[in-house]
């Protein structure tokens, strides 16, 4: 019977430990690499999808009614939600501004604060986030269900290109309807702020309006509309992409809806930062 030396035994345990640690580290590195590669591949897929839709842009003129129908579907049907939300955003902005300014900023600037907040940020961003939940998820669910029920294949077989008949009208309507909705949302927020400042905070309409006009800049409105247009594109593309990648069954369609909302919201906030960084 051989007895191992205590020193050698502990050395061998160390070797085993380091070996296991190295293995775990390599495995972690591999999984990380795999996750990064998969994300890059997905980004590549999205870019290809956008280019494929863009290539079909001239087809808009052959079927403008398809885009018009989608503008009505996205724009008109989202209007009640946008009206309620933007009114209260303006009202809350006015209340918060008054609370934060109390004692050291005159109430003439309430209108300025509401105007700046609404036009630069809350108008386009919150409208887009709300529409990501309403419009993006609906697109993902619809396209996912059409894929599941082989309707997309049926279109292809009938030589009805799904990108031309489904994706292009939705993208164009997103690019048009989002800015229109943001204009309405901005206006309603300003109205919400006005009602609160005049009825609750005892500020006159003239003071509120002069505050609105004080630092009002057309450039802000332009950037707000550019943001809305970009966010509209993001929401539609994410909805369509996740619909196309939906897994089988109700679970797959549900997950594609959820993923479209999550990815849209993330991208909206990241792109918002980039636009603000570049524009200001």
């Amino acid at each position: 019977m051989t007895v191992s030396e205590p020193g050698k035994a502990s050395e061998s345990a160390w070797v085993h430990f380091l070996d296991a640690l190295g293995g775990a580290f390599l495995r972690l590195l591999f999984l990380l690499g795999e996750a990064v590669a998969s994300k890059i591949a997905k980004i590549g897929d999205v870019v290809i999808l956008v280019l494929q839709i863009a290539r079909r842009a001239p087809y808009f003129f052959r079927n403008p009614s398809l885009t018009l129908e989608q503008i009505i579907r996205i724009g008109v049907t989202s209007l009640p939600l946008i009206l309620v939300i933007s009114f209260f955003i303006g009202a809350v902005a006015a209340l918060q501004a008054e609370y934060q300014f109390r004692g050291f900023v005159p109430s003439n600037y309430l209108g300025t604060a509401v105007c700046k907040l609404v036009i630069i940020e809350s108008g386009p961003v919150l409208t887009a986030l709300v529409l990501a939940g309403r419009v993006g998820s609906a697109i993902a669910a619809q396209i996912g269900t059409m894929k599941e029920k082989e309707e997309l294949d049926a279109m292809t077989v009938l030589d009805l290109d799904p990108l031309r008949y489904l994706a292009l009208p939705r993208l164009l309507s997103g690019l048009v309807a989002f800015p229109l909705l943001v204009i309405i949302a901005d206006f309603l927020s300003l109205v919400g702020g006005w009602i609160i400042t005049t009825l609750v905070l005892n500020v006159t309409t003239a003071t509120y309006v002069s505050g609105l006009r004080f630092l009002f800049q057309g450039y802000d409105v332009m950037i707000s509309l550019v943001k809305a247009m970009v966010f509209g594109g993001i929401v539609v593309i994410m909805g369509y992409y996740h619909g196309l990648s939906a897994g089988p069954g109700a679970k797959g369609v549900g997950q594609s809806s959820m993923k479209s909302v999550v990815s849209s919201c993330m991208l909206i906030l990241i792109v918002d930062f980039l636009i603000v960084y570049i524009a200001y």
Partner: protein
Amino acid sequence: MIGEPLIELRHLQKSFGAQKVLRDVNLEILRGETMVIIGTSGGGKSVILKHCIGLLQPDGGEVIVDGKVISDSRRVDVKTIRKRMGMLFQGAALFDSMNVGENIKFAVREHEKHLTEPDLDRIVAETLHMINLNPDFRFKMPSELSGGMKKRLGLARAIALKPEILLYDEPTTGLDPITSDVINDLIIDMQNKLGATNIVVTHDMVSAYKIADRIAMLLDGRIIFVGTPDETRATTNPYVRQFIKGQRKLLPEAD
């Protein structure tokens, strides 16, 4: 009239992930015939159909339609070939957001720009008549229809553009025997009235015997048998016999 090969599958291979669905499929479909492909569920029958119409590209091998290799999109415009084909999907795949009339009209309107709305309405009425349905059905939504009706309308949509080749993916699955027979008669009608070449994928042997000019069996990613219905009934191939008799265990070769 049955003639020369119209569709040829040569050494077709297809995998989805690690799963090899088609290993080496070789099959010729003759012009004007009804070829029925039988095989177990999940065996790759629908995958063959999707290759025939260019919805899937093979990993290996070739799909040749009327002398043109459609499995290589660099060499041929698949769309041109596809315009000569129609397909009835397993779940009918009707466009849920459109009524029956619009489902039939949609593709015709897009491809035949010279047609007026009255022309399109006439085509809808004629197509519904071909599948023995009342023209009033054009106003119904797909959600209001039974499974059998959906299949018939899926067929109506497929034939509205008068295709030369019709593909049927499990046309009688999920239907009662009487409705299945109505669909079988329609498939035979399409062959007679349109002179269409039919490829039907099914595991319904009653249907296969009734409509087929020839039956091919797919097993383990290969076509292991091709023969007329009579040859199929009389075959000694144990796998075909097991399938057509619906036995769980492999039957011994017949003497």
